Each structure stands twice: as C-alpha cells, then as structure tokens.
C-alpha cells in the first residue's frame, strides 16, 4: 500500500488525535480512579468504593437498575413492532415516517422532560382535562412511574432507530425462502427475523439502558427530588456535598456496571441471540 510512505508517517498523522485521546479521555478517567481510591489526605483507601454497600447508596443503585431495566423493556416492546411495521412499508414513504418518529430527538433533552412536568403536575394539563371530563385525576408526578415515563419518552427514538435499521436490512428473499420451505409466520419471525435483528436490538438496548441508568436530570425533574438514582447521588457529591472522593468512588462502581452490561451484551451478541 502506498498511501503512506511508511508506518511513521501514518503514526504522525494519527498523533494529534492520539495525544488528544490521552489527555482528554485516558488521563481524566485515571483521575476519577485516583480520586476514587484515595481520601482527603491522599492516602490509598477503598472506603469510597465500599460505601456503595451502605443501605442508602445500595438502594439508589438498585432502584436505578430497576427503573432503567423497566424503561428499556418498555422501549423495546414499543419499538420492535414499530420497527417491523415501518420496515415493511414502501420505501418512498417510510423515510418520512421514520424521520417523524425520531424527530423529537432533535428537541432539547430538557425541554422533552419539562413537557412531562407540565403535563403530569397535580394541577397540570392532564389532570385539568380529566377534571373537565369528570374523571378521576391521576397522581403520578414525583413517583417512579413518572421517571420511567420520562425515560421512555426521552430514549424511545434511540431504540427505534437501530431496530428499524437492522430490520430493514433483512433481505426479503430470506423471508420468502423460509416461507417456501414451509415455515409459518411465527416460525419465520422467531428463527429468521428476530435473530437477524439482534445487533439492532443490542445497540438499542445500550443506547437506552446506559443513559437511563445514569441520568440525574430526569429523576430530579419528574421525581421531585424524592426518588434518588445513583446519578443523583454522584451529581450531589460534586455539586452539593463536595466530596469528590466519594463521588469518584461511586463513579467507579457505575463504570463497573456499565462494563458488565457491555460484556453481557457482547457475549449474547456472539452467541447470535439473546432469546
């Protein structure tokens, strides 16, 4: 290959980014780890990480995982049929339609969340309408339910897009071949469509689960600060309590969970299916 005279010139060309990545990705992460395993005096300690086992923090972590899991599941259940419908439609029309479904992604994230504050409040829009219709009012603002709703609303496009992409890439001939060989529609779905869309499902899950697991804005806005997620706790260590060591220690725990999630997903990806 003659694109580069030699390895050195290629390296030279990549070096600005390598330097950038070291300074702005590797070093900052190392600093989080450093703060996480030291105390105020700079002595090595694992207390910051171990404190995740305290009931308050553990509860918050458990709650974060649970809410993120529920949100991801709901997003998946909503998005998969949608992806199938969209991918089965005629090409000319569906680009507009697909865009319509991911358009809210371009609205500011906080505005999307704020919308639900306005809707769900005790004297918000939904309750006003319900009252007008003489129906019982709902009271889900400042509950876990409101947070899940906020997560689903915010992250749904991130699930729709990859699932739609992977479904629309499936060659119709394969489906037809399966049909010709006698498979019914359920069998075709379970043995052809679903396995072939696994990469899309996995990237959709990642794109929803991780932001949902680590958010603090959604829980602050829709949870009335009553429901703390692990993201809130970490945020507060930096912006209120001013304990960078504990904040970093808990961040390390969070990173371990993200890593675990990645490993599980890559394993299930290699095995060719999660079902």
């Amino acid at each position, binding site marked *: *290959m*003659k*694109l580069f005279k030699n*390895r050195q*010139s*290629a390296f030279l*060309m*990549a070096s*600005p*980014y390598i330097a*950038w*990545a070291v*300074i*702005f*990705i*590797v*070093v*900052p*992460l190392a*600093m*989080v780890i450093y703060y996480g395993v030291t105390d105020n005096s700079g002595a090595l300690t694992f207390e910051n990480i171990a404190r995740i086992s305290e009931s308050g923090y553990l509860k918050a972590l458990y709650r974060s995982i649970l809410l993120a899991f529920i949100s991801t599941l709901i997003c998946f259940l909503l998005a998969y049929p949608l992806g199938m*419908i969209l991918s089965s439609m005629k090409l000319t029309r569906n680009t*507009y339609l697909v*865009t*319509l*479904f991911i*358009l*809210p*992604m*371009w*609205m*500011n994230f*906080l*505005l*999307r969340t*704020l*919308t639900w*504050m*306005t*809707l769900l409040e005790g*004297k*918000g*829009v939904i*309750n*006003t309408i319900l009252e007008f219709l003489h129906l019982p009012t709902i009271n889900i603002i400042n509950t876990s339910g409101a947070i899940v709703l906020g997560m689903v*609303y915010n992250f749904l496009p991130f699930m729709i897009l990859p699932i739609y992409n992977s479904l629309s890439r499936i060659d119709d001939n394969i489906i037809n071949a399966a049909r010709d060989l006698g498979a019914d529609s359920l069998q075709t779905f379970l043995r052809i469509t679903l396995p072939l869309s696994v990469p899309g499902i996995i990237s959709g899950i990642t794109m929803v689960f*991780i932001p949902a*697991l*680590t958010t603090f*804005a959604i829980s602050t*806005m829709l949870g009335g600060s009553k429901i703390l997620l692990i*993201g809130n706790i970490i*945020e507060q260590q*930096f912006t209120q309590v001013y304990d*960078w060591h504990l*904040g*970093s220690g808990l961040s390390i725990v*969070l*990173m371990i969970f*993200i890593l675990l999630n990645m490993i599980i997903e890559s394993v299930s990806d290699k095995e060719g299916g999660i079902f």
Partner: protein
Amino acid sequence: MKKVFERIYLAIILIFMYAPIVTLIILSFNSSKSRAKWGGFTLKWYTRLFSDQAVASALVNTLLIAVLATIFSTIIGTITCIAMIGLNSKLRSVIMGITNIPMINADIVTGISLMLLFRFLHLGSGFTTILLAHITFNIPFVMLSVMPRVKSLNFYVYEAALDLGATPLYAFRKTMLPDIMPGVVSGALMAFTMSLDDFIITYFTKGSGFETLSTLIYNEVKRGIQPEIYALSAIIFVVVLSLLMIIYRSPNNKVKEK
C-alpha cells in the same frame, strides 16, 4: 385488517410522542401563567423571550459550541480514520478501544472526569472547557461513521492516480475523498446533534457566567417553569421540523438514501 392495526399502532405512538409537544406549543400562546387555565390568546411570551438577553446569549453559545465542536471533531476524526489504514492492527485496536470509551461510558462520568482534569490544569471553566469537552465526545461519533467508509476504500484507484503523475494530495482529493464524504457528512451531522442536545457534560464543565440552552433550561426549571420556556420549545420544534423538511425536499438527497 392487519393494515388497520398497524395504522392504529403507528398513530398511538405518534400521539404519545407529539401530544406533549403540541401541548407545549398551545401553552405558549396562553395568556394565563397557569397551566390549568386558558386565559386567552397572546404573543407576550414570545416578545418576552425575544427581549430576554440571557436566552439570546445561551442560544448563541449553544450554536457556537456545536458548530465549532463539529468542525474540529470532523477534521480530527476524519484525518485519524485515514491514518489508521497505515497503522499496525495492534495500535489500531488500542486507538479504537480508547475512542469507544466516551461513547460507552456514562455521560455523568465523562463530565466528572473532564471537570477533574480542567480543575487540575487550572483551565478555568467556560467557553474553552465546554468546547474541549464537546470535541472530545464528538470525535468518536465522527470516527464511527467515517471508519466503515475508509475501510471499504479502493486503494488501487489512488495508486493508479499516483502512477499517472498526480500529487498525493490531488490523488487523495480526487479518488478517496468523494468516497468517504458521505461518512464525513453524516458524522458531522451526528456530532452537531450530540453537541446541541448535550446537557450532562456541559453541566459539569461549565463555569461562572456561561450558560448553554440546556443548562439555562435546567436552572429555569429549578426556579419554576416560566411560559417563555414554552415559547422557546415551540420555536425550536418549528425550526427543527422545517430544517428536516428542507433536507428531505432537497433533490440530491434522493441519491443518498441508504
């Protein structure tokens, strides 16, 4: 029958996604400050919004950061992707591994880690720190979309051009750039979107007296939502909608489709 169910399903999801936005737009014309009462039609929240300097400067900041971060990250990301061809596979996978970190990692950890770095370097905080942070988390998105294009490049054409006497730069521009351009453009778009939408990383890397739209809205929400914010949402929504319409209407887009 199946078609009808499909239509209904699409409609339900669309209503779920758009009803809240439509509600905000309606509220932005409500002269009563209360969300529960309709006090008549008004444009006062819009006039107030336009005379609000804080919103104007936050908007300028947001766009400026997004545009600059997109330009820098697209250039750095594209150059790096091309350079990767010439690197040995071990170094290449190390670089790709590191590049994946900001994408996989939680925004909150990325934000905190950069905040620690900026404090350590005494970089102050504000425009520069936010820009550096945005470039950092944008580069992976650019590389993600440029890399497949670079991998599928046909180098023989490039070599042929060289053999025919073209300078390397000219040969690159004529043979390779057109092939990777779609990847570069979509990478840049992705970077721009990510930058516009970011709240968490900006929140941790911003300093005194500097707000982007996201941080401004977050502050406003904590103080109680003012109807000006509804007007702002309405405007943003209309702008986004019309921009997308323009993109889809433009004739050369038909070729790019998938």
